């Protein structure tokens, strides 16, 4: 087999599998940037996958499914927001609870959709003209899903907002030093709510991508741990949306290659890689200025209440 087709297949699969990772990671980056760790990604994704499939199946309109899935993911995330921001409950426990609830609810409600085919999934698109560019054309413009492009555009926009706008300054300030942000007139709770909500919306969308586009059908537990990879990815991306793009595709490539290279590399090694890399990255940036520039937001997991601490 020619090296071109090898490259094309690997990269186009990377885009396809990396998209749900990217969407959910972008959302988690925003939540964590605002200081809220949300371990409920898996739960929000699966509830989105279920809601998206149910709507797409009943209405025959896949985009409506994506829309509702995002909304459901967003609403679902508000439970975590309420617990961790308003009630200032422990974020770790609340996130775990959200995952349990999401897996449980989708499993119970999704029973009657098990085994149903989806006759109107999100169709892949081919961009005429561009698709015939050698190598790049087949990778980028032939048979990819519209959500693939949307996620890339979102990554750029979300990077821009985070680093180049006032809103972004507020978000980062709230995650680094909420007391100071508060004294400067930033509404800490509101920013955090917003960011958690964005995280929920994108996780829901990622779930819908899985159940309406990537593999159009509903199966209990179909996110299969992707939400936890997203947690690792968020770290791996240094909480930066553009690096999130790189990281999501890197992990997706690892996943795809674990099947193509399995005659040579132990699959367990490639599967454990995202988690090991996340820890190594944290170690690498744990010192001095790197920690400040690239490490975790200082106020991550810390609830904020004016006048405390």
């Amino acid at each position, binding site marked *: 087999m020619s090296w071109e087709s090898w490259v094309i297949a690997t990269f186009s699969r990377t885009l396809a599998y990396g998209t749900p990772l990217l969407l959910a990671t972008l959302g988690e980056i925003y939540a964590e940037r605002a200081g809220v760790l949300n371990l409920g990604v898996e739960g929000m994704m699966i509830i989105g996958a279920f809601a998206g499939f149910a709507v797409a199946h009943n209405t025959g309109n896949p985009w409506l499914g994506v829309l509702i899935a995002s909304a459901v993911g967003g609403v679902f995330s508000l439970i975590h927001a309420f617990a961790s921001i308003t009630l200032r409950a422990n974020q770790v426990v609340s996130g775990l609870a959200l995952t349990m609830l999401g897996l449980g609810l989708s499993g119970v409600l999704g029973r009657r959709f098990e085994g149903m085919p989806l006759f109107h999934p999100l169709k892949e698109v081919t961009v005429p003209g561009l698709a015939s560019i050698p190598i790049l054309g087949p990778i980028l413009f032939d048979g990819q899903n519209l959500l693939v492009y949307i996620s890339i555009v979102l990554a750029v926009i979300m990077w821009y907002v985070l680093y180049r706008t006032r809103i972004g300054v507020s978000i980062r300030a709230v995650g680094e030093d909420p007391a100071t942000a508060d004294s400067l007139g930033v509404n800490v709770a509101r920013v955090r709510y917003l960011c958690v909500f964005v995280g929920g919306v994108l996780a829901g969308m990622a779930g819908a991508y899985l159940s309406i586009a*990537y*593999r159009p059908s509903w199966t209990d537990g179909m996110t*299969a741990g992707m939400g936890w990879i997203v947690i690792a990815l968020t770290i791996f991306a240094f909480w930066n949306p553009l690096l999130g793009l790189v990281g999501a595709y890197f992990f997706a490539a690892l996943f*795809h290659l674990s099947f193509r290279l*399995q005659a040579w590399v132990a699959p367990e090694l490639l599967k454990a890689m995202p988690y090991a890399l996340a820890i190594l990255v944290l170690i690498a940036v744990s010192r001095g200025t790197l920690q400040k520039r690239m490490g975790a937001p200082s106020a991550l997991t810390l609830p904020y209440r004016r006048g405390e601490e």
Partner: protein
Amino acid sequence: MKRALVVLGVLAVMISVGMVGLADAYVPGTPLKVGFIYVGPIGDYGWTYAHNEARLIVEDTFPWVETFIVESVAEGQEEAFIDQLIQEFDVDVVITTSFGFMNGTYAAAQRYPDKIFAHASGFMRLPNMLTYMADFYQVYYLNGIIAGALTETNKVGYVGAFPIPEVKRHLNAFALGVQAANPEAEVQASWIYEWFNPAGAKEATEALIADGCDMFAFTEDSPTVVQVAADNGLLSFAHYGSQMYQFAPDYVVSGQAVHWDAIYVDFLQKIYDGVYTAQNLQNVDYWWLMSQDAVAAEAQPGVPINPLYVDALKAYMVDDPVLGMISAYDLFYTRLAQFSNPGVTFDPFQGPIVDRTGVVRVEEGSWLSVDSLITMEWRVSNVVGSWPNEP
């Protein structure tokens, strides 16, 4: 603290008081209560779904049977459920449907010598514990004949759950079928290391497509491979038949269907008749194949080959060493008839077979024993890709 100790004391007393009033042995001819312990959710597309379908057929067939079920039981937790089924629901027969339930079932069978146990796919038996298995290897061989005939790239993909003897046996049988129809074609194996993992099955299939495969068989409990193949305009063989066929009716050529009810109906009837009791099951091991109607090659019930592909198969000619020039279609039905015949006259693993490393695995003219079949680690010469534990 003191209170806690008192509570513990009371509990200790309650525990040390022995069990009372355990139910008696089953009296043949009386209503029979049967408990099923499933490893997965009934809603999966594969293994557990098939067992549950069989259970429903059993209930319809025998008015004297009442069934109880537990789904999604984790390995190691089966004993508690067996206890509950027996103590609370007074079941007479417990059926455990996963290899991983072997130790728990065995221990329970020793503790309840009057109850009858049936364990799927295992090898430990007791006077009150039988084992059973409906095996697909003949069916995969039939699927392989079609794959060999219809592949245009001479590369056929197989997405396997785990590289364990059960799946290796099926993959090998499939590859032998491919070889029978098309000596040029290879079968490429890809493992996803899970019984159920849609995302893994999707990427494994895509990877095989990228490597040039154009036909797909698989062992995984979701219709993913069928869907992905169809999206690329490629053909596949449905695992557990009708459930998956509907996902791509135009692209599923054939597939594997299992009828556990054939086995269940048989041994439950024998228990009802008093033929099987809690004393004589030590050597009862069902290893049922096509001739017992426990498995079938079909795209959907009653349709062995999707009509869309009949013409192509009739047009494809095979030079068989015994049957001479014969169309793939006729070869398929000849083998199907031979497998279905109670006195089976052909076996996929019929010698001579040389494995990929050149070792003779089956001597000319002989067949493999069931024991060799269920411990198979070697691979057929036309299988490529990863193959852990190759001898």
